């Protein structure tokens, strides 16, 4: 087709069209169209449908890839898949754009000049892996295996994680904890004894009232959640939105609470006081499952709606009315836990307040609330035991600094970075990163660059040349998800299932899948016995067989579901709460014992100085983090971010929608230019942009200098004393016209 224009092609094929009568649900009146319907787009002959699961974000939606005459055509949702329910989000639909990206990494690269100058030598895989193994062996000899750290995002990183554990390091870290959902998981764990997990264990579908605090479903396309959100809203469900910005979700809300940024805890406390004072909570539930309710009740007495008004700017009557609205629908009132919750440094306590409000509604363990996830039992591959590291994790020695970022959780990224800079409690000399662009995922880029300067080895495994890749010693080009097997996804969800990612297309150049990279590198490190299988299909087959499941069926259908299991108390789930008291902890003795607030308290946060605006950021429905801005299918939908600015402020400053401005933050850092969106839809004290734009990697030709980078502006961060998360909504900017 390349040399033949579409118009000519149509003329040629036109002669044979219009002859076939199709059987169809629309009945016998349906006839094939004439020549103007391009034959290329018909279903039928020459079309292969291959089930797999998506990697445009971490939701792992079941997908069906269509290959027509050997070319990738389109990707749809797998109707069998409980996550996608047969429908992908725009990013998943835009998956072909990731495959076709002309700027993809093509071959392994070794740095030939100074770090960051981006002068490379293309090498073979054997050369690249030998180089890495040699450096890793030297680090092990000089400093110990603990001095290698691994940063990972996504299921694709599993095999390198396994390799790193076999090598002997405990320092396996992910920004998804300390830069994202960590505070929430700890806050809920402190209250109910369990995490919210991913995908979040929320039954939005059956909720009668959904409360979103900063969560902007619809702009944030966590697929199942958005589907269920539309469903419950379409069915007349009540929605309450708390956000400084009139989000898409706010447009669907019965009550919109235009909160002053940083005051959410004040609102939550006042809501709870109203609900407790007016006896609107689920008393039986609280009596049966609650611990320390009376102390909690006494503690929140001071938080009147009138007090909260002075902090939040939300009218007392709106606080009361919205609290009563929640209570009206209990226990099917779901206060969304949020996901990206690293805002102000007291985020674990805010998440705990959200957990407590849910507890008052009795929504945990109930239909329309938080369910108990079901999963299938699929044994792990029987590897040899890992060596036990002599030194503990570097980020939080003895769990003393951040008492609740304990062993079960990911290592704190910023803790690893700090140790890399200071050499304390012991030096970190090598990083391997997989699928995460740390310069965009972590606050304060200077600190990340400073840490990198202390490394003897930085290996970046990715599909595109990210900014971080520009600083690497070795860049390893991975196959995109459409070209590879990954570990199977044994999901924890409303219904149990196991899903397969499998190749749809061949990798176009020298790219290799992560399992291959991990296995080959392990061989070079003398750790080959940790990879006793020959290829990943052998590994997957082993696990499937051990689970009593058919690998052939999995390959054919992409998904195998298990038997339905109870997920709510009334379906037979035993109401167990693995907290110290064995109950829902309204009052937390473990927090009190360590000198922290046993019931969340509101603390004032620093406010923007005169002339400055608080910078807040969020998600675009068509992009994921800083990963997709070079995907042409998606950049056609949005190729730059905008600066949301209250229209009255814009008038005062003399800027209008479409003008470009630069931002300057409190530390004098100036952004790339960004287009103004002057709008009624945001408060006057903050500005908003979607995350992930303003790329500075020249090799990302589509994304280069399109929009501004929030990450660059986030030089300040406030660390959560409970778990080490980095609150990032603490930066202030002015506009440079």
């Amino acid at each position: 087709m390349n040399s033949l224009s579409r118009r000519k092609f149509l003329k040629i094929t036109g002669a044979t069209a219009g002859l076939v009568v199709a059987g169809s649900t629309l009945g016998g009146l349906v006839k094939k169209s004439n020549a103007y319907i391009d034959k290329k787009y018909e279903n039928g002959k020459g079309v292969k449908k291959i089930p797999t699961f998506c990697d445009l974000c971490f939701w792992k939606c079941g997908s069906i890839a269509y290959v027509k005459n050997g070319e990738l055509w389109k990707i749809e949702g797998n109707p069998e898949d409980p996550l996608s329910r047969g429908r992908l989000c725009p990013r998943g639909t835009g998956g072909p754009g990731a495959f076709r990206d002309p700027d993809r990494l093509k071959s392994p690269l070794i740095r030939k000049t100074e770090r960051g100058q981006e002068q490379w030598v293309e090498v073979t895989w054997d050369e690249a892996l030998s180089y890495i193994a040699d450096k890793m062996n030297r680090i092990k000899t000089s400093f110990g295996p603990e001095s290698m750290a691994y940063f990972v995002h996504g299921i694709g990183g599993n095999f390198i994680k396994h390799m790193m554990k076999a090598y002997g390091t405990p320092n396996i870290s992910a920004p998804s904890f300390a830069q994202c959902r960590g505070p929430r998981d700890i806050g809920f764990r402190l209250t109910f004894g369990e995490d919210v997990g991913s995908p979040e264990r929320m039954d939005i579908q059956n909720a009668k009232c959904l409360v979103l605090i900063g969560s902007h479903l619809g702009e944030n396309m966590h697929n199942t959640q958005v589907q269920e959100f539309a469903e419950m809203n379409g069915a007349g469900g009540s929605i309450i939105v708390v956000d400084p910005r009139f989000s898409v979700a706010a447009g669907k809300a019965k009550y919109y609470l235009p909160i002053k940024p940083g005051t959410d805890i004040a609102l939550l406390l006042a809501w709870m006081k109203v609900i407790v004072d007016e006896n609107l909570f689920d008393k039986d539930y609280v009596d049966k499952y609650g611990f320390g309710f009376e102390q909690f009740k006494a503690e929140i007495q001071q938080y009147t709606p009138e007090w909260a008004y002075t902090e939040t700017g939300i009218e007392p009557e709106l606080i009361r009315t919205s609290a009563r609205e929640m209570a009206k629908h209990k226990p099917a009132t779901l206060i969304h836990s949020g996901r990206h919750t690293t805002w102000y440094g007291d985020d674990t306590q805010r998440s705990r307040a959200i957990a407590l409000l849910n507890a008052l509604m009795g929504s945990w363990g109930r239909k329309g609330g938080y369910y108990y996830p079901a999963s299938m039992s699929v044994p792990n591959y029987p590897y040899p035991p890992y060596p036990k590291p002599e030194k503990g994790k570097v980020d939080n020695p003895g769990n003393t600094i951040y008492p609740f970022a304990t062993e079960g959780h990911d290592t704190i990224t910023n803790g690893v970075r700090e140790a890399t800079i200071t050499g304390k409690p012991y030096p970190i000399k090598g990083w391997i990163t997989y699928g995460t662009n740390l310069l965009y995922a972590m606050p304060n880029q200077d600190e990340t660059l400073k840490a990198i300067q202390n490394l003897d080895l930085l290996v970046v495994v990715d599909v595109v040349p990210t900014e971080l890749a520009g600083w690497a010693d070795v860049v390893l080009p991975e196959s995109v998800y459409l070209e590879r097997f990954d570990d199977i996804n044994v999901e924890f969800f409303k219904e149990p299932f196991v899903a397969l990612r499998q190749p749809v297309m061949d990798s176009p150049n020298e790219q290799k899948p992560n399992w291959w990279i991990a296995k080959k590198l392990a061989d070079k490190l003398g750790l080959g016995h940790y990879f006793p299988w020959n290829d990943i299909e052998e590994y997957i087959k082993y696990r499937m067989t051990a689970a009593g499941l058919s690998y052939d069926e999995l390959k054919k259908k992409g998904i195998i579901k298990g038997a339905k299991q109870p997920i709510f108390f009334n379906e037979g789930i035993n109401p167990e709460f693995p907290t110290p008291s064995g109950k829902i902890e309204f009052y937390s003795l473990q927090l009190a014992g360590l000198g922290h607030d046993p019931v969340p308290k509101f603390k004032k946060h620093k406010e923007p100085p005169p002339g400055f605006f608080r910078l807040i950021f969020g998600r675009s429905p068509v992009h994921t983090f800083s990963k997709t801005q070079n995907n042409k299918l998606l950049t056609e939908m949005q190729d730059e971010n905008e600066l949301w600015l209250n229209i009255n402020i814009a008038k005062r400053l003399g800027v209008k929608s479409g003008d470009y401005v630069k931002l300057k933050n409190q530390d004098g850092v100036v952004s790339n230019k960004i287009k103004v969106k002057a709008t009624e839809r945001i408060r006057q004290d903050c500005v908003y942009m979607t995350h992930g734009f303003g790329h500075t990697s020249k090799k990302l030709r589509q994304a280069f200098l399109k929009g501004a980078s929030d990450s660059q502006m986030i030089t300040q961060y406030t660390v959560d004393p409970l778990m080490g998360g980095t609150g990032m909504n603490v930066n202030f900017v002015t506009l440079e016209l």
Partner: protein
Amino acid sequence: MARFGMVIDTKKCVGCMDCVVACKTENNVPEGFCRDWIATDSKGTFPNIQMQIRTERCNHCDSPPCVSCCPCGASHVHDLGGVVLVHHDKCSGCKACIAACPYDARFINPDGYADKCTFCIHRVEEGLNPACVSVCPTRCMYFGDLDDPNSEVSRLLNSRKNKALVPEAGTKPQIFYID
């Protein structure tokens, strides 16, 4: 005979643009163009704002000005479902239809002909919904036969308040919005 149309529930639509991306991959719409798009209307002042988000495309009008103005006979009403289509090989690219359309639904394809939404007639003929309808994660779009009183689209129009876009243009659009 069937009369195809759409009903779109703006209460459900979040404006995620999945319909736009899906149309592009399904129909191989050239870079820089799209056959459907998202419109957002908001009124009021902060924080008292009313907002409607909706997906838009060719309305496959019953009195299509793009057909009556076409000097080449390229724009035409298809015999199935009243769908408005363009014979690519008859089209001279004169843009009369673009000027005539009150919905700005058409563009000139780089190959020289007027291009627009086909209601994915190639899929409809296979018994499938148009791509945009079948991918929408919010299930806000309904496609079907408006002449069939038992179709989902007819039932929705009978039971819920609805309106079409720019009805004053008199083109009898066949896409209806409910909220």
